């Protein structure tokens, strides 16, 4: 709410400094509320009061005053000019701090990059291990299904050496074949054992399949997902010893043979 009327007669006295304390405080409190009309009037009153300076008789100060002032002013101007081109210490301090911060930041960034790189490598290794485990799990599941499914056909592979344990194959027409054996002697050197499918067709040549080596305990397990011949068209399975990587046709006599019933 504006209540300027009570202050209208105070503007000039306020500018003059003639108001008693209570009135002065009241007007200043009102001005503090942001009353633009009163503020404008007070400003004009200040100007009006400043005109009273003209009542003072004009008088020239001594030349000494101007001399003292100009001497001080010249000295301060020179000081200001000489301090201008120089770069303040605080700017140098700022630059140094910025430089140190940059070095620190760069080092931190490099450390973070290395850490990210190492983490990525660890993640890749774990993913690879996981993929391998999943593959092994899938193989184990498939082997288990083949070995336990009643539809699988058992094939006993007898060795030509009476001292060598036999092998057994389970062949599922849809899931593939699993070849197993225990205490199987390892082939000499880098040679491997190779599985062959002997077709029923007259004059049919042995069809090469996968190669394998028993592990250190002589255990042998081989999953053949997609045998190169159908169960119904296979007469027998045979295993020979071949050079590493296998052969397109047998180069030695069969060490194990088993007929497909």
């Amino acid at each position, binding site marked *: 709410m504006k209540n300027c009327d009570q202050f209208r007669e105070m503007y000039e006295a306020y500018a003059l*400094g003639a108001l008693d304390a209570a009135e002065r405080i009241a007007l200043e409190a009102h001005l503090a509320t942001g009353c633009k009309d009163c503020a404008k009037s007070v400003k004009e009153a200040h100007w009006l009061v400043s005109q009273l*300076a003209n009542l*003072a008789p004009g008088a020239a100060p001594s030349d000494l*005053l101007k001399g003292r002032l100009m001497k001080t*002013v010249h000295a301060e101007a020179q000081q200001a000019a000489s301090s201008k081109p120089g770069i303040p210490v605080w700017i140098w301090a700022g630059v140094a701090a910025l430089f140190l911060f940059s070095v620190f930041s760069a080092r931190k960034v490099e450390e973070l990059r290395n850490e990210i790189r190492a983490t990525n490598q660890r993640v890749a290794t774990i993913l690879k291990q996981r993929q391998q485990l999943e593959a092994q799990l899938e193989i184990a599941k498939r082997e288990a299904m083949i070995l336990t499914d009643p539809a699988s056909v058992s094939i006993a592979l007898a060795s030509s050496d009476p001292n060598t344990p036999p092998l057994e194959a389970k062949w599922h027409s849809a899931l593939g074949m699993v070849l197993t054996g225990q205490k199987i002697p390892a082939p000499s050197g880098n040679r491997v054992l190779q599985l062959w499918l002997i077709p029923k067709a007259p004059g049919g040549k042995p069809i090469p399949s996968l190669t394998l080596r028993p592990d250190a305990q002589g255990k042998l397990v081989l999953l053949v997902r997609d045998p190169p011949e159908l169960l119904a068209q296979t007469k027998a399975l045979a295993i020979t010893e071949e050079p590493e990587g296998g052969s397109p046709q047998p180069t030695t006599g069969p060490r194990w043979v088993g007929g497909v019933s």
Partner: protein
Amino acid sequence: MFLAALIPTAAHEVSPDAALVHRLLQKDVSAFEQLYDRHSRLVYGLLLRILQQAGTAEEVAQDVFLQLWRNAGQYDESRGPFLPWLLTLARNRALDTLRLKSERQRRREDQTEEMPSVAAIPEFEKELDQKSRAKRVRALLASLNPQQKKAIELAYFEGLTHTEIATALKEPLGTVKSWIRNGLLRLKEELQAVT
């Protein structure tokens, strides 16, 4: 007021004083010397009138002009003309000197911060040069009855309040208030009338 409107550029031009103050911000010694030459008589005359001692008046004048030199940025051109600002600054300094260590000293300090920045220039003032204005002010005050003139002078040159003036003149407080206000309003009308 209407004369100001007839000269539209006048209100927007930078006054010579304001231009010199701008140069002061760049520590331009020449600008300071020009401002001193333009206003030192008026400032010193005012200080001498208040302080009554040439030596003290020169000391305060030195303080005032050094404050101008060192703190020219305190003057805000958009809030009023330069000379009333400078005169207000000088008057406050002089009254402070007169009343050092008194209760009024604190009140003046408060005003010292505000006064120089709030002297708005009325439209009619823009058309009136300094000499003509000084003549009008002196003529108007001379035309007042002696007690009324004395009341205004006690307030302006000695910094007395209404109550103190009433006591000094042995007049009723209301009469003193009326004298001062009416005198200043007549001064305002007088300055307006010449435009």
